[in-house]
């Protein structure tokens, strides 16, 4: 089966600019996750979707981050305006409904804010 697709692979922007990341999960996976992984740390959940509804966005900085999954398939994560501390790898993952069978991750987008 095809994996979780993410684009772009790399992005460099100046602070205060905006950026968007795209994720296409595995076909049939109802649950989609966006994680932020700062260098030297484990991934931190930003937002979790179940189909096109938000399940958990408690750690999403809503003043600058937004995400959508309008048709319950692919998803976009946006940052506007970006700050230096947003430099990180943004990972997308998908799973069947509960996630207990394991998560499949994409290769991530490495964002550098200068």
């Amino acid at each position: 089966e095809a994996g979780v697709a993410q684009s772009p692979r790399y992005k460099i922007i100046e602070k205060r600019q905006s950026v968007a990341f795209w994720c296409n999960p595995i076909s049939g996976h109802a649950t989609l996750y966006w994680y932020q992984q700062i260098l030297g740390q484990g991934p931190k959940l930003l937002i979790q979707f179940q189909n096109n509804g938000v399940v958990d966005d408690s750690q999403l900085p809503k003043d600058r981050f937004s995400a959508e999954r309008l048709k319950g398939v692919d998803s976009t994560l946006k940052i506007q305006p970006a700050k230096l501390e947003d430099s990180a790898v943004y990972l997308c993952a998908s799973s069947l409904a509960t996630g207990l069978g394991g998560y499949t991750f994409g290769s991530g987008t490495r964002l550098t804010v200068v």
Partner: protein
Amino acid sequence: AQTVTQSQPEMSVQEAETVTLSCTYDTSESDYYLFWYKQPPSRQMILVIRQEAYKQQNATENRFSVNFQKAAKSFSLKISDSQLGDAAMYFCAYVNDKIIFGKGTRLHILP
């Protein structure tokens, strides 16, 4: 709140030898899953092994096995016959309604 602790930021092992990565976690739940993920330089998180908390038997996948001590809330990963391709970051993860990762252990394989 659930937490996952990996106390070894880095470890090294000689090729063909055995290495054990440590992980402890804290939870008040009785039903959950524990995972070990491998993250090579390509950044993609790869599931190595999975353990259901209700199972007493330790999970095994080829050269990878775990030592799951539920009462002690410990979940260590043993890699036997280490290979150069095992070099990566390894993350321990706790899963209940969401997944929580530890900070990772960087494993070096010495030829």
